[in-house]
C-alpha cells in the first residue's frame, strides 16, 4: 500500500491532499506511521519502528494499525 504522491504531511501532523483540497490532523503516532508509509515502509518495518519507541505489544499495535489503515483508505489518501 502506498500513500498518494500529492499528500503533504507536516511534522506537526497536518495533512493536505493537494488533489482534493482536503485537510486532516493526526496525533503524533499517526503522523509517524503516515510518514513511514510515505517513505514506502510496510507493516513489519513500521511495527518494529513504533514498538521500539512506544510501550505496546504486537497485537495491540496491529489492531490499531489496521483501524488506521482502513481510515486513511476511506479518506482516499492511499493509491489503490
Amino acid at each position, binding site marked *: 500500500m502506498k500513500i498518494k504522491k*500529492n499528500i503533504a504531511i507536516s511534522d506537526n501532523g497536518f495533512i*493536505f491532499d*493537494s*488533489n*482534493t483540497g482536503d485537510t486532516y490532523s493526526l496525533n503524533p503516532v499517526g503522523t509517524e506511521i503516515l510518514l513511514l508509509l510515505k517513505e514506502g515502509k510496510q507493516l513489519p518495518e513500521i511495527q518494529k519502528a513504533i514498538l521500539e519507541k512506544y510501550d505496546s505489544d504486537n497485537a495491540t499495535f496491529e489492531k490499531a494499525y489496521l483501524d488506521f489503515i482502513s481510515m486513511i483508505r476511506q479518506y482516499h489518501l492511499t493509491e489503490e
Partner: protein
Amino acid sequence: MTKKKITVAVSGLNNTDNPGPGIPVVRGIRESKEFDARIIGFAYENLEPGIYLHDIIDKTYQIPYPSAGIEPLMQRLEYINSIEKIDVIIPNFDAELFSFMKCADDLKKMNIHTFLPTHEQFEERQKSNLPDFGKKYGVNVPFSRPIFGENEIFGLTADFTYPLLVKGKYYDAYVAYNPEQVRMYFNKIVSKWGLPIIIQEFVHGTEVNVIALGDGKGNTIGAVPMRKQYITDKGKAWGGITLDDMNMLDLTHKIIGQTKWRGGMELELIKTNNNELFLIEINPRIPAWVYLAVGAGQNLPEALVKLALGEEVKPYESYDVGKMFVRYSMDMIVNLEEFEKLSMNGEL
C-alpha cells in the same frame, strides 16, 4: 520600470454575499507591476459596495441595465469616455456581456479595448446548449434540457431521476427532490431571469472550479483549479483552496484549445468519486474568486488587460498549490452626500 498609465473601467462592484468579480479584478490590476491604472467603476445599483471603496475605485458612473438595450448603453459610454478616456473595459456580469460584445466594434472606434468571447463562443456554452457543447468537444456533461412551462414538470421523470437541478439562464441553481420543488424553483427563477429554465441531471461528487484565460488563438494564458471550502447559502465560495489536479488543467487546456476561447472564463465541474470530471457550467467571464489566482501567482486581470491592449502575454506555467482565500465582510461608513450624489447625478 516606469508603469504605463492606463484607464480601466470595470463593472461588478457588488461585493456582497453574492459577489461580483469587479473588486478582485481591480485588486489584481492595482497590483500590476506594469500598469498604473485609473479605475472607473460601472454600477447598476446605488448600493454596490465598490462605489464607496474610494481607495479601489477612483470614480464610478451608473450605466443603464442591459434590458435597456444597446443604444442607451453606448450613449452613456460615449459620455463617460469623453471625460475619462477609457483604454479598457472589463465587463464582469454574464447578463451584460452580450451588450458589450455587441458594442465591441463601436468601442474600438472610440479607442476602448475589450477582450471578450466571440458570439459563437458565448452562445455555444450557454447552459441550454451544454449537451451539444459536450458532444462537440468530447467533454462529459450531465444530461440537461431546457423547459419553457410548468406543464413540462411532471413529464421530467421520463428523462430524469430525482434529485435534479433547476437552473436559471444566467444565474441561480437549486437541487429539487420532487416535482413540487421543481415548480417552486421554476417560478422563483423565471420571475428573476426569465425563460428557459434548465433541468440538469444531478451528478454526485465534489464541486471544483477552474479560473482560466484564453488568448483567442487556442492558448491558455493562465489556469488555476480551486475547491470551495466554505459555501454560502447562495452557493457562493466564501473560502477556497487551490488544487494540484492535472486532469482539471488538461480539461481546461482542451476546452480553450478547441474553442479558441477569448477572455476570462470559469469552469464549474463535478469531480466524482471515480475522479471523473463533469462540466456543469462555463461562465464566460472572470469569476469573483479571481484574487485567489492572483495570490497564487497568476495575475489574470493584468494579463487580460494586456491581451485587450494587444500586448504579447506569456502564458503562466505554475501557481502555488494549497493557497487559500477566506472572504470577510466589513461595514463601511458612507456619508449621505455621497449616496445623494450618485443617486442624483449618476456618478461619484
